[in-house]
């Protein structure tokens, strides 16, 4: 089994993983700010201001890495398409053909425009319409990845259903996994700010985030069932293949993330609300922050696996 010796596809896998993670972080940060960060800190204007500055910085970093890794992805993908070494693929004629004449190229152009609009919105974020436009373009930036993958090539009416499911799947994954980064930053900021009401702020933020998580996981499941229904025919062949085993690894990592989420939701979060006498629930907050960091690492592992799966020829070719 040579899963980890991905050979010639190594650079493509790596850049896809980085790109997916950066896109998810960008989208997750904006979703987080809208439904978790801003509402949770409404009663603490100073902390809210600090949090907004933090979100903005995170979003900028996300957009920058997304755009940069996107350019490299285009280069590496063009090389893979043309079957050329990376050095020889850097010709304007090949890159222009890929950009102008393939679906991958069209989606790449649309997503680049979305990234530029998003950057403009971040620069002029003090206007309310810009905030909503930023949220919409950030979601679009990640959701549009669906058209570059398997769902983008399913023929006929079924293809539309497959795409719709994949769009939701990507958006849900970004909201949850990408949102973990701002969550960890917010919990750290709340702890350092030493506001009197910090346990209730942290409780409110994690409670809101876990609601977002439940909605995301439910969406991942629903869209997953739709995809399974569309493509279930190859289950047996793939269950015994390397491709199938790599998918199982992805799901094991996902299950571990879910287990952490369950601990956070049903064990640590309720403890934030309990102040036994004067003892503040530092341990619970620290636990949530630590788990968040571990979940981020697991989330990146999932992006790496997805980056690898997308470049592999599925095992159906062998049967």
């Amino acid at each position: 089994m040579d899963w980890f010796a991905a050979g010639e596809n190594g650079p493509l896998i790596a850049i896809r993983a980085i790109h997916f993670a950066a896109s998810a972080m960008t989208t997750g940060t904006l979703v987080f700010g809208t439904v978790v960060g801003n509402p949770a800190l409404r009663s603490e204007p100073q902390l809210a201001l600090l949090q907004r500055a933090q979100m903005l910085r995170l979003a900028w970093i996300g957009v920058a890495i997304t755009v940069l890794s996107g350019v490299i992805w285009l280069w590496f993908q063009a090389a893979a398409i043309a079957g050329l070494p990376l050095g020889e693929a850097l010709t304007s004629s090949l890159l222009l053909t890929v950009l102008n004449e393939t679906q991958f190229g069209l989606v790449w152009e649309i997503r680049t425009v979305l990234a530029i609009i998003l950057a403009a919105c971040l620069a002029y974020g003090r206007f309310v319409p810009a905030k909503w436009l930023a949220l919409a373009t950030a979601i679009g930036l990640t959701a549009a990845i669906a058209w570059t993958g398997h769902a983008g090539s399913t023929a006929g009416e079924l293809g539309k259903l497959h795409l719709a499911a994949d769009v939701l799947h990507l958006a849900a994954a970004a909201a949850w996994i990408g949102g973990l980064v701002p969550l960890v930053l917010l919990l750290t900021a709340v702890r350092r700010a030493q506001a009197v009401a910090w346990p209730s702020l942290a409780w409110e933020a994690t409670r809101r985030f876990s609601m977002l998580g439940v909605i995301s996981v439910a969406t991942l499941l629903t869209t997953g069932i739709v995809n399974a229904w569309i493509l279930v025919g190859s289950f047996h062949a793939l269950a015994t293949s390397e491709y199938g085993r790599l998918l199982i690894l992805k799901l094991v990592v996902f299950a571990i993330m879910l287990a952490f989420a369950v601990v956070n939701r049903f064990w640590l979060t309720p403890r934030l609300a309990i102040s036994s006498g004067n003892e503040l629930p530092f341990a619970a907050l620290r636990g949530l922050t630590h788990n968040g960091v571990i979940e981020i690492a697991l989330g990146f592992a999932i992006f790496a696996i997805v980056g690898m799966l997308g470049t592999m020829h599925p095992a159906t070719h062998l049967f």
Partner: protein
Amino acid sequence: MRISSVFGVIPLLLLLAVGEASAHAMLDHAEPRVGNKVATAPREVTLWFTQKLEPAFSTITVTDSTGKRVDTGKTRVSGSQMSISLRPGGSGTYRVKWHVLSTDTHTTDGRFTFQVGQ
């Protein structure tokens, strides 16, 4: 119990993720049919694939029994279907070689033969 319901979904996820893997363009069927015999040399060869194709990077070449190319060199792509016109040719074994890029950025290729006449 909520935890058990969370873990109960794992088989469903498994189903989902495995399902995704059946993508990538593979030859579904062709006209003339793969390996079949036809009475006279066809005017064109058409291939149907399991995925949508990229015209810019999808090609067919057809050679006759002497190894001479009999296709006109212009592959037409429409959705998941690809065809090429043939010049009039004789009988014998025709070889079809195809190379496609599906819209999910994966290249696949293959070859097959069909018989003309005899």
